[in-house]
Each structure stands twice: as C-alpha cells, then as structure tokens.
C-alpha cells in the first residue's frame, strides 16, 4: 500500500486528481501566476507530500482544493476532480457540503487556528451539527471518542476549556480530531507540525498515520521539511515558485532525484550526523562565565488569601563560553533557553552571576551597562519583526553608532557600507532601501550586520535561522562561521534544531525544565548522549533519508518537565553533575 503509483490501472482508487491547475492573482498587467500547471493524483490510504520552500505555491494549491482561495485570486484554471467530479465548477453551498465532510483540513498554526472565545466542545459540535452526522448525546459521545483517538488526556475537562488553556500540541490534536470528525476521505494537512517541538511533531505525525490507517484516508501533506517527507510520504510533488519540479514515489525521489532543484533542496537540508569533524582547538580564555543563573517571574495572585508564587524559568544554570567558540543551547519550547539569552543581555532581572570579559554585569545600570553591551550583542529569530519597517537599512545598521556616540555621519555611512559588504549585501542601493524590500535571508544578514556594528566579542543568536528556508539557512550559517573565524567571535547559539546545532557548534548544552541536563563537546552530547532527556530529544529528530523512520510510539509519551511554579522564596537545589568524560557533564537524577 505504501507504494501506490498513480496510473490508470488504479483509477478506481483515485480520490483526488488535480490536472493542470494554475492559480493567478490580480488583473491585467499586475497579474501574477503563483501556481503553474500543477498535476497530481491522490489515492485512498495514500500520503502525498507537496514539498517546497516558501513562495512555492504549495499552500495555495491546497486552499484551491478546498475552494478557500483568498478573494484576490482569480478562479483557477485546470481541473480538480474529486471522485471524478469537478470541484472548481461547484457552487459555494455545494463546496460547503464537501468541506470537513469529504475533505478535512488542518493548518500550520495551532495557536491561532481555533476560535479563542468558543469552548473546544462547541467548536467540534459545530462541525457535527453542520453536516448532520450526529446530534445530542450520540454527538458528544462521538466527539469524546475522537479526542480519545488523538490521545487527549482528561477529555471531559477539555470539552469545556477554551483554546488558550491548551498547549500548542494539544491544540493541534484538537484540530486533527475536528478535521477527522466526519471521517473525511481526504485530509489536507498544511505544515501541521512546523510550529511544534520535535517530540510533539513526532506525536502528531503518528496520530495522522494511525487515523489514516483506520479510515483509509488519503492524506495530502504540505511541508517544507524533507525529514517529514521522508517519514510520511508515499509519493512526493516538489514545487518551486509555483512550478512542479518533479513528482515521484518517495524512494525514487530520495535515491534518484530527477530535478536539479530537488537535488539542491535535499543537499541543503542539514542532517544530524553529517557535520564534518571538528578540528582540534587549543584552550582559549573564557569571554562569558555564567554561574548559578536563575530567573524567576512573580505570578499574579488569583485571590487575597493565595500565597505568592513564582515561575522558575531558569534554575541554577552554569556554563562558560570561550573566545572564538560556539556554544549551542538546545531544548524545547518553554525550557528557558531564550530566557537565558535575554538574561545575558541584561534584558531582565536575574540571580547569580554573569561575567562578560571578566566583569560581572549583575545590577549594572546606565552608562556602565551601555559600555558592556558593546561587547555582547544579539540576533533574533524573526528577521521580519526585528527590523523597524520605517527605517532605512543605513539607519538600522548605523543606529548602534548613534546610540554609543561613535563617529560623524560620514564615518558612520562608510562603516555601514563596510558592514553590509561583510554580510554579503554589497549592493550600493541597499543602504537607502527599507526592510520589506529584502527577503528573509537578506533581512537576517542585516540583523547580523547590526549586531556586528560595535565589534562585539560575543553574539547571542536566538533561533537565528529557524524562520528561514533550508537553502537560505545554509547560507546564513556559512556567513556566521566566516565571521567567527574572521573576528574571533564567540556565539551562544540558541536553537531547537539539532542538525543546525551540530553544523555550527563546538560545544552543546541541553536545557530541560529551566536547567542544563547535559553539557559537553558537540560529539560527546550529540553522538554519545547520556541523559535520558537528551536521548529522547535526539530520537525525535526527523531524518531526511529513507529507512530511518523514527520510533513514533516510543515518543508518544511526553517527558514531563517539573512544574516551574513554586511558592515565593522556594530555594531549589542546584543540579548535581557527574563527569562522564573530559568536559562532558551530565545531570544526575535527583
């Protein structure tokens, strides 16, 4: 069943057939073709992945099948045949009867895909009522069994809850349960796991697979992640800028890709375990020493009599960053890695000591703090949000000089031009342009140029490539490496992506529940993990190669972080570490 090749012999099994689909936006001169001549078949029980980078038109193709294209889009040309019925010529009420009942859909962003002011139960009930699948007690029974099927704990409680009371992973499970309520023949999943941690991702993919098996659903999965493709797909369509580059069964695609673009895409994906060995590095002096760093937030009280409580976001964290070194800080969302980064920048109050070039920054204010900030700079995850849209690139990159009162306008301009050429944006007109005129990767280069402006010794990079396409990711990582060797920079590289960490870091620290559970050299931590959490995390990493599917069932069990909410004044004990090997420390279980 896993190798269904779309041909006429199996036409009886074909659920959906897209033929020469083209989608255009706008009218006349400004008309833009965003999907061009796309064709594929989807069979019962089959998973077809549409893979491609941002702007490839993959999501729009899915929306066209649902009849949910944005208003600016013109009526698509070509054909979308569902059981040999043309969907494109159906009226809106006819399409409404098909949506959810015959074709279900789940979306990328579980945090915003549910109505925030409607209870989970009501949102699910709405679908059942609309399609008259069941009513009354039978309907509630059906909803419960569906939520059970996606392994949501405490179902009765969930039904009465609102979306904001659920985590991202749970919300995506609700979305899947909702999409599967009417047992549709096709499930369209648009980047269903992109916004989730790898362990949660594995759980969601496993659930989709289980439900597919039970209902013989045809799954159309849209993803940019070749790891997900390798794991889920029977057949693959590769798209690039609206054009179908290649369509092939999964084995052919990975073993013998036909299109040059597919080869590029596969080559650009960072793969865990393929990074070149590290050269021997002489011992260098430390530039950043963190001792017993803890960050706590007070919780608001819900009643007068409630004892005050605190969230322990970061708990007794210790590490040292040496000159010219990259230390990776890895962990899942909520583990405290970004909070650690912000504490290093003195962007929030902390306990413990942070020494930048030997100088403790705790409690520094005003000009003393400003002086320290010249040595430690930050690059953020989202290059779209990190640049003020109303300032030119010259103003943005030159701003640090202005703040620190360096140079006159002539010198500043010269230095900005120099910085931009260092990060690979040498175009003369770049300085007078605005952020929206640049692509994501170029914007991240601008952010890096800005961080470099004051010749810092340390750069804290918080998920700097997570928002970028893989091909662009590789370029930015190369740039960061070049800059490091050129200026002897030290990076604290915060990421959830193990392959990226392996590619760039000399040493790695794994965070879990606000603490470091394992720290050591890259090879020690990633290739010889000792702590159970590190092992769990590594086993959840999707691998973009055939025959290396993850053991999803083992991952279905959540690893529970300790409750970070503690009574005020609670003194947590620092973790005890054992040294496995030289420089390889592992937290001992309490």
């Amino acid at each position, binding site marked *: 069943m896993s190798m269904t090749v779309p041909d006429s012999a199996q036409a009886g099994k074909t659920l959906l057939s897209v033929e020469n689909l083209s989608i255009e936006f706008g009218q006349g001169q400004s008309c833009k073709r965003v999907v061009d001549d796309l064709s594929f078949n989807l069979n019962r029980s089959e998973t077809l992945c549409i893979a491609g980078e941002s702007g490839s038109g993959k999501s729009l193709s899915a929306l066209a099948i649902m009849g*949910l294209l944005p208003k600016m889009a013109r009526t698509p040309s070509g054909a979308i045949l569902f059981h040999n019925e043309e969907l494109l010529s159906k009226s809106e009420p006819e399409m*409404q009867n098909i949506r959810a*009942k015959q074709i279900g859909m789940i979306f990328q962003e579980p945090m915003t895909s*549910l*109505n925030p*002011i409607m209870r989970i139960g009501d949102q699910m009930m709405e679908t059942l009522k609309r399609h008259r699948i069941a009513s009354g007690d039978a309907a509630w029974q059906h909803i419960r069994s569906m939520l059970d099927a996606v392994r949501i704990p405490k179902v009765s409680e969930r039904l009465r809850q609102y979306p904001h009371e659920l985590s991202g992973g749970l919300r995506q499970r609700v979305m899947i349960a909702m999409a599967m309520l009417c047992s549709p023949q096709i499930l369209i999943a648009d980047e269903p796991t992109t916004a989730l941690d790898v362990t949660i991702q594995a759980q969601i993919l496993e659930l989709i697979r289980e439900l597919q098996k039970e209902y013989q659903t045809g799954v159309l999965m849209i993803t940019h992640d070749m790891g997900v493709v390798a794991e889920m797909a029977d057949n693959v369509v590769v798209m690039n800028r609206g054009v179908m580059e290649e369509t092939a069964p999964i084995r052919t695609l990975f073993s013998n890709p036909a299109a040059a673009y597919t080869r590029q895409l596969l080559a650009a994906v960072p793969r865990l375990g393929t990074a070149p060995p590290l050269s021997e590095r002489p011992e260098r002096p430390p530039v950043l020493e963190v001792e017993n760093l803890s960050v706590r937030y007070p919780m608001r009280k819900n009643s007068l009599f409630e004892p005050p409580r605190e969230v322990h976001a970061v708990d007794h964290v210790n590490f040292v960053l040496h000159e010219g070194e990259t230390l990776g800080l890895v962990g899942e969302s909520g583990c405290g890695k970004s909070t650690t980064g912000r504490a290093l920048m003195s962007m929030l109050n902390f306990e413990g000591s942070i020494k930048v070039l030997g100088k403790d920054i705790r409690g520094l204010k005003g000009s003393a703090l400003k002086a320290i900030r010249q040595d430690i700079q930050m690059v953020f995850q989202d290059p779209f949000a990190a640049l003020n849209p109303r300032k030119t690139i010259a103003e943005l990159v030159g701003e640090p000089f202005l703040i620190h009162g360096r140079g006159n306008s002539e010198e500043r301009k010269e230095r900005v031009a120099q910085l931009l050429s260092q990060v690979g944006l040498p175009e003369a007109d770049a300085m007078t342009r605005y952020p929206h005129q640049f692509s994501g990767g170029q914007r991240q280069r601008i952010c890096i140029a800005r961080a470099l402006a004051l010749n810092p010794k340390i750069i804290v990079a918080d998920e700097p490539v997570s928002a970028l396409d893989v091909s662009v990711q590789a370029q930015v990582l190369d740039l960061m490496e070049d800059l490091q060797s050129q200026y002897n920079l030290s990076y604290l590289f915060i990421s959830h992506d193990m392959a990226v960490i392996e590619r760039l870091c000399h040493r790695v620290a794994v965070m879990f529940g606000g603490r470091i559970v394992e720290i050591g050299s890259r090879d020690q931590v990633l290739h010889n993990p000792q702590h159970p959490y590190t092992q769990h995390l590594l086993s959840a990493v999707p691998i973009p190669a055939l025959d290396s599917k993850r053991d999803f069932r083992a991952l279905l069990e959540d690893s529970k972080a300790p409750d970070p909410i503690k009574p005020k004044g609670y003194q947590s004990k620092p973790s005890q570490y054992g040294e496995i090997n030289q420089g390889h420390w592992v937290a001992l279980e309490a």
Partner: protein
Amino acid sequence: MTIYILRRLAYAILILLGVSFITYLLLYLIPADPARQLAGRSATPETIANIRAQLGLDLPFYQQYFQYLMNLLQGDLGRSYIQRTEVSALIGSRLSASSQLLVWGIGFELLIGISLGVLAALKRNTALDRGLMAFSFVGVSSPHFIASMLFLYLFAVHLEWFPLGGYGTTHHILLPAITLGILGSGWYSRMVRSSMIEALQQDFIRTAHSKGLTRVRVIFRHVLPNAIIPVIPMVGIDIGIFIGGLVVVESVFGWPGLGQLAWQAIQRVDIPVIVGVTMVSAVVIVLANLIADLLVPLVDPRINLEKS
C-alpha cells in the same frame, strides 16, 4: 474578582471627590453671581449681600466646598436656589425619564453602529463602505443642537411621523432616542468595521470555513463575537460623551429629564442643582465603566481582570 470590584469602587470614590471639587471650583471661578440672579435687577446691594450670607456664598471657597462635602456624606445634595426644594428630590423626579432615554439612545447607537460597521466591513472598499463611513463621520461631527432641531423639523413638523415633543409613550421616546443613536453611532460603526476586518483575517475564520459552515454562520458565530469585544469597554467610555449630548437633546425635545434640569440650572447659576446633576452623571459614568469592564471577561475567556 471581589478584590477587583472593591479596588474599582475605591477608585470610584476618588473620582467622585475629584469631580465634585472641579465642578465646585469652576462654578466658583465663573464671573456669574447666583445671589444677583436671585435678587433680580432692581435689588439693592444690601439685599444681595443678605442673600449671599444666607446661601453661604460669602465664605471662602474651601469652607464652602468643605460644607458641601460634609452634607454630601450625609446624602444631602443641598437645596436649589431657584426652586427652593431639595436637589435630591428634583433629581429623583427626573431620573426615570433620563434613564429611559439613556437606555433607548444607547440601544439605538449600538444597533445602528454595529449593523453599519458589519455591513461596511463585509463590503469593504466599495462605494457602500465609503458612503457608510462618510455618514458616520458626519454623524459624530454634527453638533447635537443643530441635528436635533433638524430632525425635529423634518420628522415631527414636516413629515409628522413623530410627536413634536412630550413624554410618556414609546412613540414620544423614539425620535429623541433615534437622534442620539444616529449621532453617536459613528464611533461604533468605525470601531466595529475595523475590528471585523481584523477578525475576518484571523486563522480561525479559515478554520471555520474549512468546517463547511455557511458564510452567515461564520460571520455571526465566529467573526462578530470576536469583533464585538473591543466595543464593550467602548460603551463605558462613550457614556460620558453620550450624557453630554443627552443634555442638549432633552432640552430641544422638551424631555423632562436631568439634562433639561441641568440646562435650566446652568442658565440661572443654580449651583447645587448643577453640582448635583454632575455628581449623578459621574456616578452613572463610573458604574457604566465598571459594568462594561466586568462584562468583557464574560465574552472573552482569555481576559482575567486580576491579571490585567
């Protein structure tokens, strides 16, 4: 929740203190002299001085204000200079008429404002949208006294759809209430339009469509409830502006409410009545704001008053 309400009520007392002080101070500073008004044109300076002493107007400002506060704490709003009756009784007799007009007027404001806002958002960037927004702009910028007289002439005198004035039946209340509704609806239609447009672009609206729901259901069950949330606190803020309009509209339509009472009192510098009506309005505004803020978490479960 209880802590929140108690804290808000404590603030309310401070606000009322401030309102009474500022009103009193302004009336003290204006050049009009209530004693001269009372005594009439031909009165001798002695008579005027007598009246001043009788009313306590010869005392320094802080003593006058302190005396007023002391009486206020005992629930005594003072006596009207002109009508020689208790201010509380005057206000009491007119409260019901004003409350009716207030409720009807705000009802029309919301009805007109929300409907037009929804319509404009759904027909965004069409001639209808631009027309509705122009209408709301004219509405909020028209002075109440001109618009009231225009409506009175057009609908009561010319078309004879409504009575010219008076009080008592639903028929009487409609024209002043609709006038207030039309004039104030612009704030709401603009706000509802923009929050509808924002809500329409949310991911969960796409989800709602993907469930196969009809357009009507998506709009009324998913878009509008989310778009309406910012309107609720807006009612609390608007009520102050609304009461300002109420004073004028009541006077034009001869509506026997607090606005009319205030209008007459201002013309004759009847200080206790002016301050009394101001205080009652302030209480209404403060309470309306509190109620509006308490309503928000009922509609939006994400909002927790203790945490905001």
